[in-house]
């Protein structure tokens, strides 16, 4: 009863752990297990911080970040700010397998994903749209701006650099998971 293999993941996302374990049990590699495990949360959204329909940006759009690393070859595939593609870690796996790069970002990453056979679709949901409209109704608080006009701690943008750059404390005073995180 060896302690290996081992599957370990952040937060109590049980289905993801189970999927990774089943992948190993059915002969898959460690990389396959990580991909399948993380993909479960992209489908099920887990606690809302993974996958479509969560964490809208200032424009109300949900975009995805993901990476996968093979500790044997030290190969890495990653996507940042991936738009309109649900299976981000699947695209990251394609970056690892089919390019010599490490990280693709934004609309270009979406074009790469389409060329690899992934389907483009809207990642917004009623939930993410409601989150966004509530945020707009709260004068866009909290937000991630500082040293700008109008005062980002009181008003929405668009913002311009403040003429005399005065050091601003970050807009959100209290940190913690109620303000969202990675």
């Amino acid at each position, binding site marked *: 009863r060896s302690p290996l293999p081992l599957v370990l993941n952040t937060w109590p996302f049980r289905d993801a752990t189970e999927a990774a374990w089943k992948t190993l049990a059915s002969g898959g590699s460690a990389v396959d297990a990580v991909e399948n495990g993380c993909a479960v949360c*992209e489908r099920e959204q887990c606690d809302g911080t993974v996958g479509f329909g969560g964490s809208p940006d200032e424009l109300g759009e949900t975009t995805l970040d993901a*990476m996968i690393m093979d500790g044997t070859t030290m190969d890495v595939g990653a996507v940042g700010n991936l738009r309109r593609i649900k299976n981000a870690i699947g695209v990251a796996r394609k970056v690892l397998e089919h390019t010599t790069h490490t990280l693709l970002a934004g609309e270009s990453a979406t074009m790469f994903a389409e060329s690899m056979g992934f389907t483009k679709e809207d990642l917004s949901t009623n939930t993410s749209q409601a989150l966004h409209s509530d945020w707009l109704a709260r004068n866009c608080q909290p937000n991630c701006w500082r040293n700008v006009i109008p005062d980002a701690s009181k008003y929405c943008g668009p913002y311009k650099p403040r003429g005399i750059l005065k050091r601003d404390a970050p807009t959100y005073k209290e940190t913690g998971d109620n303000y969202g995180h990675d």
Partner: protein
Amino acid sequence: TIGMVVIHKAGHTAAGTSTNGLKFKIHGRIGDSPIPGAGAYADDTAGAAAATGDGDILMRFLPSYQAVEYMRTGEDPTIACRKVISRIQKYFPNFFGAVICANLTGSYGAACNKLPTFTHFSFMIYNYLKNQPTEEKVSCI
């Protein structure tokens, strides 16, 4: 965010992340999750680690890489994870973050930065000793 590490029987390691990032981020913002060494890291000669939390801060300290390097020197996974959190605490005492670590023998650990609203961190573990997916918690430091 989900961060996952796998240590396989033959000593093969892998790590990965997936997230939709920070709420209400500026359009185009990318967090720590897709950055190798920040969001996750794996090396068959040392171990694997993954992180979650305030990506704008975490990204600057490469917590996953640093944890793996601590384990390379023989540090226990829990200690490696705690040391990484402590390094960041010095600069950003109120950052929101947690790390999971696993070494090549299948030992594992986790650590998190204590905040009024975040005192414990839950993670999942599955190996033959558990024979089912098991939630574990650590107290933040």
